[in-house]
């Protein structure tokens, strides 16, 4: 009964809108402003410097999107931290 499938499986415009809105808000709210990202970078640098020697210029921290199981993308913070030397062991 193909006809019934057509009538019952199509989501309403309002449901489409609500889903799109939800995703848009998640993305918008998760985007970290550049100032805060800088603060995060500085603090991560300070913490890591206690244990490893790293170059502040090489410390790369940024916002990105990762795809999860449902094929939706969610925000993520990724870091690339080249280590020059381990500091002395405790």
């Amino acid at each position, binding site marked *: 009964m193909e006809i019934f499938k057509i009538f019952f499986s199509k989501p309403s*415009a*309002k449901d489409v*809108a*609500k889903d799109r*809105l939800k995703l*848009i*808000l998640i993305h*918008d709210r998760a985007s970290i402003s550049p100032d805060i990202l800088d603060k995060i970078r500085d603090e991560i640098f300070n913490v890591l410097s206690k244990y490893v020697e790293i170059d502040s210029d090489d410390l790369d921290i940024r916002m990105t999107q990762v795809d999860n199981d449902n094929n939706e993308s969610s925000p993520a913070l990724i870091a690339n931290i080249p280590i020059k030397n381990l500091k002395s062991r405790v």
Partner: protein
Amino acid sequence: MGESIVITSGKGGVGKTTTTANIGTALASMGKKVVLIDGDTGLRNLDVLMGLENRIVFTLIDVIEEKCKLKQALIKDKRFNNLFLLPTAQTRDKNDITPEQMLQVVETLKEEFDYVIIDCPAGIEQGFENSVIGADRALVVVNPEITSVRDSDRVIGKLDAKGLENHELIVNRLNYEMTKRGEMLDVNDILDSLAIKLIGVVPDDRSITISTNKGEPIVLEEKSKPGQAFRDIAKRIIGEEVPFMDLSESTTIDFWSAIKKVFGKK
């Protein structure tokens, strides 16, 4: 000391100025002393909605630049003696005012008026900053559309970041028929998305266009549904508990009253 309220939204064209004009007029009709400030320097329109565009002599910019006294720039409403408009300039722009200057004007007005209502322009730049700084509370106007809700979310975030957490939502231009048919976001969809309390729902109505044309805020019309909605919002602002209007009645009643008309209710 009066209360200052900013009417904001983020998105343009959702009904902030209409809301300002109507809530202001409604509060004045309830006996409150009200002043409306047009925050949209360069693109002013509050004067048009109030029907006072021909009476502008001095503006907010003149007050700030000390070319006139604040009292001289206030225009008394045509209908209510306790309602005033502080218009802004059409030939300057929003960067010609600093938040500190705006704050001073609002603080001075709060000493004389029960309610100081600031019509915030669209956007989140200087105009927004200036309008929000002097406000004790905010009314966020949203249309039932993804774009408007998204922008309002950003604005609410900015208000929270500034410590202005006394904010409430007005859903404007709700088309009840469309929400019933599943074609438009409804109030619950919007409340689910935004972290904010609801203070009013105003139905979409072409009569608002007519009231803008005439320069007579729709609250002045007894039988108008959007007018009633704005009057209810004004009552809630002063602390009265008013149940939300049932917007579903509108079309059925109109149908039957149309039939009655045909059968000779003269």
